[in-house]
């Protein structure tokens, strides 16, 4: 209790309420943050975390309620006002201008200038130092951000936030595309900032991570603050119970599945940027994990298999059908399905409804004489919304207005609805809460049991270890080792992905 109450209040929110149309995202929430405190903000998907921090940063305005910053009333009219008051934020959905370079993105809105003219030389060194500090010197200052992989983009975003000498730093799932190593690095930074008196709000669905870095926590459920306390005095189980209102027994539920014949075999596939060709087989009833660091080539491999990006050469054999130069529609006809790691940019048609998105890759059940039955389609969509517990008003709601995790679930629902034999999953649990994650693992297990093959890319080793049958490790665009999941440990996975040596 002592440490929990110590220190001056940095930020206080009282009875903050926020509605989006009929949805109540925040309902009379109280929240406080002390100077130099690292506080975790936890909750299920759609609990209102992002909404709360967006109100703090000025990106959203609350309907009702008061906020004080350092004891003074604080009502930012826009993000600029928030920043000027010393609040800096990493948004859940990456917040970068694709045409601008890394440097330009990092300095956006805080350009150093003399009389309106840019002074570039001074900031450059600082940016280099920061990137180096985060152990990513390979990210060039002059590279347009659209050429970076998702993980690298997240690093850029983090660099921006920590360069912005803020008093309050808000991080909304900063590590969703990061590897363990990068996460560790980030925690070092966070701890250093704490010693400098910066208060930090940290949102994440990786609860062990949270336990590691945060001192206190606040849990939101259905837009209400259901508990606040000191991290050291609680257990994970208690937090999970607060989040979902019940106990969770098994994080990695497993349905027994048998490995069958090969259903996808990849031979000498070489993506444009990969250093070496890749070969592997995926069998029916198997979950094959792909581990690796940022930019190690896992995404590129999946995309090349699916025909989204051109490959320099190689062969993809799906259930006996050889596809050399894949086109995505051909792959779907051959019962392959892919979940993109970039749900906003590629995975979802944001301006369309849930029903449209979920059924987009398979219309056949609703077709009669070439015409679609709108009713049947809506019903089917509603079933998936229930099955995956997507928090939404109904099948007609546009995907853009869902919370980050629920969007991810919608993308997953689409793939499940497609009913493919081979599933290529690229970071499928990005931004998904613990409870739903375990549900997704169960789905995967069940699909494998039904004789499907699953390729599972993840940067989160525990889930790979908990779910997969075999795990392959990528290093600089090639597979360095494949072993049964039981033969890997957290440390050995880490070693293989960082050094490339098994």
């Amino acid at each position: 209790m002592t440490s929990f109450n110590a220190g001056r209040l940095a930020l206080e929110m009282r009875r903050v309420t926020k509605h989006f149309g009929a949805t109540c995202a925040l309902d009379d929430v109280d929240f406080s943050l002390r100077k130099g405190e690292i506080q975790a903000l936890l909750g299920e998907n759609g609990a209102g975390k992002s909404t709360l921090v967006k109100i703090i940063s000025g990106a959203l305005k609350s309907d009702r309620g008061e906020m004080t910053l350092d004891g003074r009333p604080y009502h930012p009219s826009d993000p600029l006002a928030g920043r000027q008051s010393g609040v800096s934020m990493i948004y859940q959905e990456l917040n970068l201008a694709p045409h601008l370079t890394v440097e330009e993105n990092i300095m956006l809105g805080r350009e150093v200038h003399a009389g309106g003219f840019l002074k570039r030389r001074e900031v450059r060194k600082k940016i280099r130092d920061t990137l180096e500090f985060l152990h990513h010197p390979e990210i060039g200052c002059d590279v347009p951000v659209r050429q970076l992989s998702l993980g690298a983009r997240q690093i850029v975003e983090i660099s921006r936030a920590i360069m912005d000498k803020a008093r309050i730093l808000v991080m909304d799932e900063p590590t969703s595309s990061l590897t363990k190593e990068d996460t560790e690095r980030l925690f070092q930074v966070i701890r250093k900032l704490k010693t400098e008196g910066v208060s930090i709000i940290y949102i994440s669905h990786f609860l062990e991570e949270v336990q590691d870095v945060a001192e206190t926590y606040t849990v939101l459920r259905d837009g209400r603050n259901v508990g606040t306390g000191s991290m050291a005095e609680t257990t994970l189980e208690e937090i999970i119970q607060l989040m979902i209102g019940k106990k969770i027994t098994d994080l990695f539920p497993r349905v027994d599945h048998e490995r069958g014949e090969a259903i996808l075999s990849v031979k000498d596939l070489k993506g444009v940027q990969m250093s070496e060709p890749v070969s592997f087989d995926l069998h029916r009833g198997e979950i094959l994990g792909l581990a690796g660091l940022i930019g190690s080539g896992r995404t590129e491999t999946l995309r090349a298999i699916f025909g989204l990006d051109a490959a320099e050469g190689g062969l993809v054999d799906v259930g006996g059908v050889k596809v050399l130069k894949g086109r995505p529609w051909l792959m779907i006809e051959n019962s392959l399905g892919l979940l993109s790691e970039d749900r906003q940019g590629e995975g979802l048609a944001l301006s369309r409804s849930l029903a449209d998105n979920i059924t987009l890759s398979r219309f056949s059940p609703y077709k009669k004489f070439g015409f679609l039955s709108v009713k049947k389609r809506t019903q089917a969509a509603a079933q998936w919304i229930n099955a995956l517990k997507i928090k939404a008003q109904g099948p007609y709601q546009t995907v853009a207005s869902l919370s980050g995790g629920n969007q991810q679930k919608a993308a997953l629902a689409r793939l499940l609805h497609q009913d493919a034999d081979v599933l290529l999953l690229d970071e499928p649990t990005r931004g998904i809460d613990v409870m739903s994650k375990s549900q997704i693992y169960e789905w995967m297990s069940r699909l494998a049991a039904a004789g499907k093959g699953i390729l599972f890319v993840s940067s989160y080793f525990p889930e790979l270890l908990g779910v997969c049958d075999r795990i392959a490790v990528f290093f600089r665009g090639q597979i360095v080792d494949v072993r049964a999941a039981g033969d890997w440990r957290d440390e050995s996975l880490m070693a293989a992905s960082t050094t490339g040596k098994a």
Partner: protein
Amino acid sequence: MKRKTKLQAFINLLAPFLGLILVIAIFSSMPDVQSRFLRIANLKSVATQSVIVALGALGMTLVIIGGGIDLSAASNIALSSVITAYAINAGLPPLLGILLGVLTGGLIGFMNGVLITELRLVPFIITLGMMGIARGLAKWIANNQKIDAPLSWVNDLMAKSPRPSWLLLAPGVWLMIVFAVAMAVLLRYTVFGRHVFAIGSNEATARLCGVRTKRAKVIIYALSGLFCGLSGVMEFSRLTVGDPTVAVGLELDIIAAVVIGGGSLIGGEGSILGSMIGVFIMAFLRNGCTMMGWPNYIQEIIIGVIIVAAVSLDQIRHRRAA
């Protein structure tokens, strides 16, 4: 929940009509033209005047929902009308002339689609280029003149008082109605229609979900071209000559109609009903302003204001609905 969406659906349905109702109400209450404005004869002529823009707007709606734009529409209309006139003038049977006109339109649209997908260029540029090319071709074929084709039944398609008088409206108006319904069904109740929305909303997603985006886009532009071709035939029918200079700048009217009707130039949004309402808003505005005898510049200003107002209304409605 269910009722809410029904109510909202009703509002969504009514709201675009509001602009139209407003325009009609304004002119019907003007003492000068009151008695004349809502007469059947006037409504008939507004309907007939709308056919050309409406047919163009049917295709343009598809294109705009798919996230594209077709600046060549008006030139295409002119080219098709010239081709029809040329063919009929050369002694071909009128039906063949019509077919050639429509196919010419389709061909130009098809080329738009192929160039856009193969060169991977923004539609704005390809269709801007095609705008010049089609107009140039039209003038070339017509030898910089009007083509005086002999009168035939083709010219009755747009007759305000149709030949079998039980038709009530010009055959062209019926064609417009039939095609509008067909397109609305296509967009809403077919896989292709859903694909068009998906492509417009996020092309990468559509590709990922197995939509053959290239093929779909070629079909979209070709269809749009066919409608322009048909519109060109109607233009010829109306004018009785093939005039290569006709419809200059009409592409902006067509686009405006679609956008007034709720089409989003970012793609993924729009409806046939909305576009048709957009067409009629503009047609009634022109008709009413002329009847009032207002100078053309006032008319130009008013139409500009209405375009902005109609779209703002729509925007506000959307924002409230969200």
